[in-house]
């Protein structure tokens, strides 16, 4: 299965939902609206022809733009077709909430926790949305563009000497 037939199959089901599609060096990237990501992803997984049964990665992105600042990127792999597909959604800075994918791919649990920890994107419906790498009482999100490289002084306390 090649990129063109995947895109056509997606367009035949979600014609109006596909905002943008790009092909770069043989990799297909599709941008969809945030409120339709659950339908798109469950279709991509359960459709017998496409069968994207493996979520190889889920990550966040901070575009640092006034609108559509945060994004979530889903890298899918179909073991049956040996084909990779990248889905992107974007959300506003004031409302960094996207639906969770844990019901579709179990792998999303850890990836969404990591994305929440680093970007502060809230995955609604996630069963256990806690910080993963940073301390639980840490108040900032380190991979946001407005976070300084050396951190915010005093935000991570050290034990007394």
């Amino acid at each position, binding site marked *: 299965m090649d990129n063109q037939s995947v895109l056509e199959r997606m367009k035949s089901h979600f014609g109006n939902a596909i905002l943008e599609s790009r092909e770069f060096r043989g990799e297909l990237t599709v941008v969809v609206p945030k409120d339709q990501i659950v339908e798109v992803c469950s279709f991509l997984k359960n459709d017998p022809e496409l069968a994207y049964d493996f979520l190889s990665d889920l990550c966040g992105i901070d575009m640092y733009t006034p609108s559509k600042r945060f994004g979530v990127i889903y890298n899918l792999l179909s073991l049956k077709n040996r084909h990779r597909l990248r889905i992107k959604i974007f959300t506003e800075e004031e409302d960094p909430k996207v639906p969770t994918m844990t019901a579709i791919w179990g792998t999303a649990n850890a990836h969404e926790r990591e994305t929440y920890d680093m970007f502060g994107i809230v995955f609604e419906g996630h069963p256990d949305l806690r910080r993963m*790498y*940073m301390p639980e009482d840490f108040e900032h999100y380190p991979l946001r563009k407005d*976070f*300084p*490289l*050396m*951190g*915010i002084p005093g935000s991570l306390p050290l*034990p007394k000497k």
Partner: protein
Amino acid sequence: MPMGISCCAIEMMAFAGPRFDASRFGSEVLRFSPRQSDVMLVAGTTTYKMAKVVRKIYDQMPDPKWVIAMGACTSSGGMYRTYSVVQGIDLFLPVDVYVAGCPPRPDNLLNALMLLQQKVQRGESRGNTPSYIGDFHPTQPVAVT
């Protein structure tokens, strides 16, 4: 107390193993309980989250106690100049010997061990308890063999 936090711990194992053999210099026993240890060998990048654990283990060691900071990351943060890495464990621990290298050769760590033995012989400790222990008087220099 082998506090092997990251990759320096591999060199620390070589230092303790038969090829470099730390036991030739009288310290063959690596104790994995802080209650049985007197030297803590911090080997690896110490993050802020891990710093609390390192300090807790150090606090559980009985006095007198010593600390060796092994490698660039432990001594100064090394190449990790970022928000998550402590820029040197001397920000929260009293360090007796720093070992340079990324990672240090096991020979270099043996050298640090011998330097520490000289310090112990002189009765010095940078720990939170007496800086001089025993009958040693600082005005009389001790010949180091």
